[in-house]
Every structure is written in C-alpha cells, then in structure tokens.
C-alpha cells in the first residue's frame, strides 16, 4: 500500500511541478532558475560545509549538496518562500547526509584498508599522525551515526554555527526546547564516543587482518 502510493508519486509530482513551474515562469519578476540561483549563491558554501562535516568526503558532500539543490529545483513552491527555504534546505541536506553516514558505516572496513594505503602514500604529514587523525574522524562519525538522528542533527547544526532559532526552523522544533535537547545530545554523544574508544581499535585490527 505504502509502496504503491509512492510509485504513483513521480507522475503526480511531475504534473504539480510543471504546473507550479509554469506559474512561476509566467511571472515576469523571477523565474525558477533565478530563484535557484539566488538560493545557491546564498546557501551553497554553508550547506556544503555542513555536509562535509557530516560525511567527511569532498566528493560525497558535493554530490549530496547538489542533490539537495536539485530537489529544491523540483520544489518551486519552497523556493519562492524565503522563510521556509533555509529550513527546508538544511533539513533535506541533513536527511541525505545521515543516510549517507549510515551507509558509510557499512563501507567502513573497506575504507579502513583504502585509507591506510592512501595515507601511506601521502607526503608531508607523518603517516602515523595522519592515520590517527583519520581514525579519530571515523570514531566521531561512528558515534554520530549511532546517536538518535535528531540529537545528532542538532549537534551537527550547532557545531556548524547555527543559532538556536535556525536549528529550530530546520528541524521543526520550538526554539525554547533547543537548549535542553542540545545538552542532552552532547551527553549522548560523549557517552557513545567514549564507548567506541576501545572498540575502534579492535575494528582496525580486524580490518587489517
């Protein structure tokens, strides 16, 4: 039932989109492309930075950021409303980013190996220091992936310098609740992070063996 509804969606969506896009295009003031351009110039670097922080890979962060803007392009209704635009963009980016982060968890063993080979070739930084940093990043991301999604999102947004009001708008929460949720999220993160301390080393041995 659920699936059938979804399968029907693209068709409906398309016609809705065409309809709305035509409406916007018929306005002399601004076209869908112009809206997209203004959203892109306003939000690109910040959106990219948030996504990079989350997934830790330039190509993947870029892909996800582009995907977010592409979806925006298909949603002209959102574009024309500046109040909801920013919240929508970061919400979508967060969802995509976290899906990617969870998928990463499954790829991790492979990446451990590749990462090590890569690091050994890399000049400048001593291999040990670089490896340690990479393991540290992995540990942080694994902790994030294990957290309750909302907590992890609050944390990432806050540490990307989002104000409480912006976090609330992005995640659809009340501004007054952000302090409490953030404090709780920080506690949750530290707990999981420290529990991963010994485990990640075992994982590393396992992956290299």
């Amino acid at each position, binding site marked *: 039932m659920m699936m059938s*509804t979804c399968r029907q969606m693209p068709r409906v969506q398309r016609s809705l989109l065409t309809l709305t896009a035509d409406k916007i295009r018929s306005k002399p003031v601004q076209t869908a492309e112009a809206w997209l351009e203004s959203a*892109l110039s306003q939000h690109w*670097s910040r959106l990219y930075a948030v996504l990079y922080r989350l997934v830790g890979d330039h190509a993947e962060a870029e892909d996800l950021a582009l995907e977010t803007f592409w979806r925006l*392009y298909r949603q002209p209704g959102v574009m024309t409303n500046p109040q909801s635009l920013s919240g929508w963009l970061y919400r979508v980016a967060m*969802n995509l980013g976290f899906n990617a982060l*969870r998928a990463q968890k499954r790829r991790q063993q492979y990446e451990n190996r590749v990462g090590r080979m890569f690091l050994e070739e890399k000049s400048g930084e001593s291999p040990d220091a670089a490896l340690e940093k990479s393991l540290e990043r992995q540990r942080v991301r694994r902790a994030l992936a294990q957290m309750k999604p909302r907590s992890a999102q609050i944390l990432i947004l806050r540490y990307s310098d989002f104000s*409480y009001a912006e976090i609330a708008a992005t995640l659809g929460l009340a501004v007054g609740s952000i*302090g*409490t949720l*953030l404090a709780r999220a920080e506690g949750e993160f530290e707990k999981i992070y420290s529990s991963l301390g010994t485990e990640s080393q075992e994982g590393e041995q396992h992956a290299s063996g």
Partner: protein
Amino acid sequence: MHLAEGKIKAYLDQQLSLADREEVEAHLAICSLCQQRAADLRSLGKQVGQHLAVLTSSPEQSPTLASARSSLQNRIADKEKTTMRNKIFAPRYRPAWVAAALILVLAVALLFPPVQAIANSFLGLFRVQQFTVVQVNPENLPEQLGNSAQLESMFTNNVQIQENGEVQQVSSQEEASQLAGMAVRLPVGMRNQPILKVMPGAEITYEIDLKLAQAILNEIGRGDIRLPDNLDGATVQVNLQSAVTAMYGDCEFNPEQARQEGYDPDNPRLPSLPDCTTFVQMPSPVISAPPGLDLQKIGEAYLQVLGMSAEEAAQFAQTVDWTTTLVIPIPRYGTTYKEVLVDGVNGTLILQDSEDYPKQYLLIWVKDSILYALTGPGNGSSALRVANSLK
C-alpha cells in the same frame, strides 16, 4: 527555584534575549548548585567541541560556487531525462505493485528496489503456495539494476498489465468479502477499527524476449548468467485476484510531506509508521506458463542475479519446488527470519532489526490457497497473537 538545564545551556551559547540573560546571571550569582551545573555544561560542551573539531574541512577544498552552478545545471539536465523515462515507465508498472508486489514487497525487500524489480519480473513464474527465504548480500547485487534502461523497456514493451477496477474503501468485513469474492478474515481484539480496502485483481501478461533478457543481464554486468533457450517467446500469465488490506492505527502516509522532508520516493527507505499494523490477504496468484519451461534453470538465474555463484545457485535451486514456491530475497544484514507455526500452518516471520531503522516485522503464510501477510512495528512478539486471532 533553580534554572532549567536548557536555559543554562542557551545562556552559555549566548542564545538568550537580554531580559533572559539578566535573569540567568542574577540567579547564577546567588546559586552555587546552578553555577556547578553551568560549569559542567560548559566543560561538556568544550569536550564535544574538541571532538567534533576533527570534522572541519579547509575552505580551499570546497567546490566554488561557479563549479557548483555548472554541476547543478548538468544534474538538472540529466535528471530531466531520467524523470521523463520514469514517467513513461511508472503507469504500467504500478498495478503490479498494487496487488502482487503488495505481499512480497511491502516490507520484506523494502531495502532494495533492484530486488523488487527482479522479484516482480520473475514472479510470473511461480505459483505461490509457500515461501522460502534466501539471504542476499546487498553488496553482491548489481548496482546498475536500479536504473537499467533495458529493464524499464522490458516492463514497458513486454509486460502488459490489465487492472480490473479501482481500489475501493469498504466499511465492513462483509462488504469486503462480497467485493473481493472471498471470505475475508480479520484479527480480533485490535485496539483500533481497521481501514479496509479492496484492491482490484489484475492480469499480467509477460512475453519473454530472450535477447532483451540477456541484454539486461549484460547491462547489469552479469552476462555470465545463461537463460534457457526455450524461454524465448514464451508467454507467462499471472492472474491476480482481488486483495484486501486492513490497516490498524496511524497508517496515513503522506507522500507529499515525506518528499518535502527529503525522502526519495524512489528509495523505499521511507519514514516508518510506528503505529501502523497492516494485514493483507489475497488468493494465491495463478500463474500459467508454457509447459516445458525449465523453472529450475530460471530459478538458478534468479538466484545468481541475487548474488549467488553458479554453484550455489544450482545447489539451492534443487532444494526448491519452483512451481509452488516464491523465493523472497531478504538482505543478509539487518534482517533475520524464522519458520513459525501460525494460523495452523507453517509461516515465515521476517524481522528487520537493523539498528539503523525502526524494527519491523513481516509475517507471511499461505492457508487454503490464500496468501496472508501481516506487518507492523516491533519485533513480532504480537504478530502471532494477532495472526492466531483471525476470524
């Protein structure tokens, strides 16, 4: 009266209005307990900040706005093409989801669209009297499967689906029975009243084009899989009768909202419905295929597409009675299954217990030529009780 933790946190993060800030400062000046809490929160925040600091990137590595702009233009152009293709493809494909796929796809293989596509295309070869579960490793699945143009073209050109009517909502068990032409059974003792819907039957005709099928296998990088020659031109007919679904609890799925939130309609990892139990029943699909079709060989190909080696597939294929069994692929990780005694017969309980997604169960069984599927949130402990209360 002490300060709320959230307020202290907001104060430390400089997120309070002037009035609130003054209030907090005034209280902190006289309350050592709140001072201690503030100090704890500050040091926790500092620690988290240090840990998360490893995640920052250097700005010069970020793609510039200009390059983002041009990549986005390319993406829009590319996706327009795909969307057009999907548009052509979706309407014909859809009815298969409504009835047949309802059972096997609803919750089992939710994790992979490719498997669903394959399972559906092969469904025509089975007369379902029982289920067998085969565990597949998602990593072994051909990646290209999900966006195979040839597969789409096969559905567009070689699969014909005729749906006999529209989905109808009915108000009682009797009405559902009458409309569906079978004795509809419903669980007793549910908290909510069900929403009952009758899905129309459908006739699916699939004319096998061996060349095209082989081309699909090539496209997905499995040109090594060989299909039996006598498959070419064979027509397979699947006759689906009406199915009845009963939904309990909060099952309203709002596709528009989900899409807004960034869920991809083509990616079935949709927001779960934490309070929705769905019960589906339909007469076993009747499938007619020409005699002489080597079902076991086709089954082997199917299993290979799912990632088995030729030897494994051959071995497994021997253990299955392909004329009566629907082989359901489930992901090897995050999903478990077991045989259970349900409703007086053997059934299969499949659990999605990956930590990444909310737990969900799917219980399937066949009794008196009726296929039953019950799916809901949780680990399935209530599933058997519900299933055994059917009346």
